């Protein structure tokens, strides 16, 4: 369990973290979402006792990290933003070092072997860390955090630098680990957090802007009234048809994406779903819809939406960062 109460961290005048509170229970995976410079890493560094908060409290399984650091750190596994690797050691030497450092009591060889299997670094076990690729360094960093089977895992952007296949594997692994542990992971990718986490805390400029379960948050963030469509047909005719649908507020015609196929950005009244009607009408006129999606929100849109209750439409949906 992790509990954060009114945590603040000031660097001079700059408030990197500004009075944030949240809680994650056992068996829960909490996603920490925010843009660059939001204060995610700073919060995690405070939680793990690397830096001290200016004010406020952080409890790891009920133990205050400031008052009883050694005991609290025993419960922790931490993967910082940059994996803290000694470049001159081999993976084997490094993991054994961390094993000793954490005063781990589990049977050494089988435990390390299990972990290497989980993050798939068996075949680089004897290699010098300096010579590993970025993705493998990240995996060794993750392995290091798992040593000693800590009850609380804090992972700062764990999938950065991994290939797509590995990203999926690591997400699955995190989900599995989260069943009987508390996991906090940070990310600036909404879809990643949605895929893995039970609970999402969104922060921006050091402040919590949303703290909710994934379902509720997604519901608040869906916007089926904002659509991007690619439709085969002359653009002015199509525009006319769309405008004729009840509830449509605005239609913008975008670029010609393929020959005779234009992209349209459609805004309907909030709460109305025009997708079925759109399909029917265009089907009658034999103008096929080649692509239709609700506009994905970029992180900036989310913050605007969460803080101002409104999304700012962006014409090209593929500009989202997921």
């Amino acid at each position: 369990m992790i509990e954060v109460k009114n945590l603040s961290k000031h660097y001079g005048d700059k408030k990197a973290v500004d009075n944030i509170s949240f809680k994650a229970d056992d068996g829960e995976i909490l996603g920490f979402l925010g843009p660059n410079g939001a204060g995610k890493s700073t919060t995690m560094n405070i939680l793990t006792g690397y830096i001290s908060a200016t004010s406020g409290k952080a409890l790891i399984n009920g133990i205050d990290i400031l008052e009883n650091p050694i005991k609290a750190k025993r419960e922790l596994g931490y993967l910082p933003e940059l994996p803290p690797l000694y470049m001159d050691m081999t993976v084997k030497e490094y993991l054994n070092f961390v094993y000793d450092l954490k005063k781990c009591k589990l049977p050494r060889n089988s435990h390390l072997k299990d972990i290497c299997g989980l993050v798939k670094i068996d075949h680089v076990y004897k290699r010098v860390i300096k010579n590993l690729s970025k993705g493998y360094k990240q995996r060794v960093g993750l392995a290091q955090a798992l040593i000693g089977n800590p009850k609380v895992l804090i992972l700062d952007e764990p999938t950065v630098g991994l290939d797509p296949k590995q990203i999926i594997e690591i997400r699955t692994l995190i989900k599995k680990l989260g069943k009987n542990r508390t996991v906090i992971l940070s990310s600036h990718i909404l879809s990643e957090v949605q895929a893995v986490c039970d609970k999402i805390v969104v922060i921006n400029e050091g402040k919590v802007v949303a703290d909710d379960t994934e379902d509720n948050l997604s519901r608040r963030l869906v916007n089926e009234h904002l659509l991007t469509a690619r439709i085969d047909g002359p653009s002015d005719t199509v525009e006319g048809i769309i405008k004729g649908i009840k509830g449509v507020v605005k239609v913008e015609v975008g670029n010609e994406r393929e020959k005779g196929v234009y992209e349209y950005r459609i805004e309907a009244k909030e709460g109305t779903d025009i997708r079925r009607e759109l399909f029917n009408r265009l089907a009658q006129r034999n103008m096929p819809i080649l692509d239709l999606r609700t506009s994905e929100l970029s992180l900036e849109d989310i913050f605007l939406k969460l803080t101002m209750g409104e999304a700012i439409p962006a014409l090209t949906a593929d500009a989202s960062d997921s």
Partner: protein
Amino acid sequence: MGAIFRREVSSYFISPIGYIFLAGFYCCTGVIFSQNSLQYGSTKLDRVFADLILVLIVLIPILTMKTISEEKKQKTDQCLLTSPVSLGGIVAGKFFASFLIYTLGVAITFVYAVVVSAYAKPDWNVIVGNIAGLLLLGAAYIAVGIFCSSLTENQIVAAVISFFAMVLLYLLSTVGNLIPIDAVGKVLDKLCFWNRYYDFTLGLFDMSNVLFFVSAAVAFLFLTVRVLEKRRWS
């Protein structure tokens, strides 16, 4: 602490620093030994030991420059500081590792004593006292070096600061003579590393000098812990 100690010792031999230190130490002491003792056919090693302080001032900064600065730079301190080890344990682990390498260097002086004993019977009590003095002086200087390493992220800067700090501690009584205030001069005289060490080279085994070096080492290690602690709050 044990884990950090073992890692540090092995890192001295993965990187060239351990070898550079030992080779430098053996080479300098060898030259000093042959100049002072062998050429004059003297069995007295006091001159050798007296000159060794200059070797330490040059070589110990190399031994200690990386200890803390490099951890900060490579962010590996995040691994150490978030594991269940106290700051004191971390600093102590590093200190003892450097001290072990240093001891391997000092061991050569015993060989010189044996060489000398082939010609005539040396005064073993004096020699043991000399070696003990050298170890104590080294311990204090290593602590100074580790402290300086905690002040910066750049190991070269750390080495340069350590060098000047060590020179200053060596010359404290000279500095004291330049200061017209009598009391200050006396205090600096007492704190001067050279004055304290010089007694050892003469074969005087004074308990207060032993305590002085031990407390100097402890004091600088404590300051290092304070620097690390303060950094968390900044």
